[in-house]
């Protein structure tokens, strides 16, 4: 079953990268278990971040991204306060 543009669930229940077949998660309970994570200042998102977030808030703001461990395809991107855990997730009942 294809999850999105980058991930699929194999017959064994593992979560695989559709681009390189790397195992991203061993099961749908932990779908991004092996993914790489990296935070950078939000300005790394490019010109879309029009002004330094420090103008508007005391909290540091980061570009948080998750990558395929095999081909380094970008699986998720979010710009969030650095001191906040990621709330974005999914869990399939399959």
């Amino acid at each position, binding site marked *: 079953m294809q999850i999105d543009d980058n991930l699929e669930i194999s017959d064994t229940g593992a979560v695989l990268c559709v681009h390189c077949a790397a195992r991203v998660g061993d099961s749908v309970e932990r779908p991004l278990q092996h993914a790489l994570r990296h935070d950078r200042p939000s300005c790394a998102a490019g010109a879309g971040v029009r*002004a330094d977030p420090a103008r*508007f*808030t005391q909290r540091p703001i980061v570009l948080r991204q998750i990558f395929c461990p095999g081909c380094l395809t970008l699986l998720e991107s979010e710009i969030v306060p650095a001191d906040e855990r990621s709330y974005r997730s999914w869990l399939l009942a399959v």
Partner: protein
Amino acid sequence: MPLINVAGSERFASQPTSESQIRAALGERLRLHSVSDDDIAGVDALTYEVIRHRLAMITEEMGDALKRMSGSVVVTDANDFGATILDESGESVLVGLYNTQLAASVDNAAKWTLLNRSNKPGIAPGDMFLCNDPWVGGGMHQNDVTVLAPLFHDGELFAWTAAVCHQVDLGGVSPGSWSVNGTDVFWESTPVPPVKIVEGGEMRVDIEDMYLRRSRVPKLIALDLRAKIGANNIAQELLTRLVEKYGATTVKAVMKRIMSDAEQRLRDKLKSLPDGTWSAIAHQDSARSGEQGIYKIVLAMTKKADRLHFDFTGTDPQVEGFINCTYNGLRGGIMPIVLTMLCNDIPWAPGGIYRCIDITSEPGTINNCTFPAGVGKASVGSTWSTMNAVSECVGKMLSLHPEHRKSMMCVCCGSWDLTLLAGVDQRGGPFVTMLCDSMAGGLGARVDQDGVDTGGLNCIPMGRIADVEINEFAFPMLYLWRREEIDTGGPGRYRGGVGGSSCFIPHDAPLGGVHLVVSSPGKAVPMAPGLSGGYPAATAHDVLIRNASARALLASGRIPSAIEQLAGSPDVLPPHLETNLADADVYYTHWQGGGGYGDPLLREPGKVALDVGKNKVSPHAAGDIYGVMFDASGVVDVGATDKHRQQLRRERAGLALTSNEE
């Protein structure tokens, strides 16, 4: 003063009430029309479709009536209004293709009216009720004023019609009722729970005076009030004709079947999707002027069999400010996404659709606030952010289905960048208006195509922006430009639609300038996230340039096209601010685009080149985000692109470059 609950205010806090509860509560006090299951089953398919389409057309006619009669550009040119037909118990049968946030909670207003006004002052033929209490329903904030009209047939309450428009000013501390310094609802326009504004076909002038007295532009508000009464009159006339032609039982049976049909078809669609839970978060920066917090709405959406459960546990507590929304606002954040993404092939009958939906939310949170929390910005504050979180979760769920994934759209225009102008217009009269240019937000990317550039908002399918010339005619302003903005669509394999900007000066303003209220979150944290690796759309960005050279440039025959050309003192504005825009000042407002879908390094280089050619993407972003390199003649250099993309893959993941990539 801190937020302290007002004893007794709970009775205004509507909660969904079923038809059987309504009937039980009313008893013999008010006779409600009813039909049996056999009546509903007995309608033949042809009659059903004819009446169903006629009902849909009536909502269109209501919209046309509002546009023809209103004098507000917000209504006539931007379509910020709603039109709904409801059954006798207040269930929404059909909503028009206008502001679906507004339509989401009009059912609660009708039900509250049934439960609280049927005894005194009573509900009778020819009556209409006015309501702008966001806790009761009918709108998200006090500017959303609903006129509800019961329709009687043979002595029984047969149905309701409802028209709601955004009113440009209903009092409160700040013009436009956008009290950016406010800490609670008492800074804002006073909410009015349902009051009988029309009795037996005659306007209640005492009630009208009470309503209009609060506004800075009472004549305009009076005109809009008549537009809503007129829209209801037209709807009731057309419904009556329908009843005369087909009979009350048949028309009501169709209304009931529309809702059950929508319910069943949504259940079938949900059943075809895998079960699971999808979580999202939506941020807003700043709750009021001068405040720098970041507030979150947290959503875990669970789809099980044929039901959807929206659980907002973990959402921040209500805040001293004006960004909160009531439970009705929360529903207004859910329904527009369910309609556009899940019900694009299903009748827009919220009364049936809500039967598939469960909501968990703690009272006292920013999207389920209690009285007297400030809600003046609710529609484009916590309701909008709720919509963003719902959009993300529904989008992820739809991505799983080979067919339904085509209906998925990433988050659209993450916030409403409010520009509110007030003062004296070029004709010497008072004016207040919300500039609706940010209605041209970028739509989110989809699984197989880019988002539509400046395509609109998913909560107002028929939303549009006024022509520049209309705004200049109506208000004392002169545009320097209104245009799409480069690099505002979220990068991705499929790019989010770009947003836009407007830049203008006061013009022909008798007082020399105008009053300006600015209100937009999304400046620290962009609010239209991407999906499947796609980047968020750009942040909102507003700049006020004091003592600019715009007039000198225009006098010399040059039309400025960039802030840098305007000299003066540019000031990047915080999310919320109230100030004056003086004769020599320039205001630049820049709203958000849509989120991207997929990894931008997987975007076809040729598409990036086209984007650069059309000023959708800058050459800088083409290289840094999309990894596309061009040769000296501006043609994509395939070899250099491959190499650069390989390098970017490691760099952005925080990995050391290999010797070949350095």
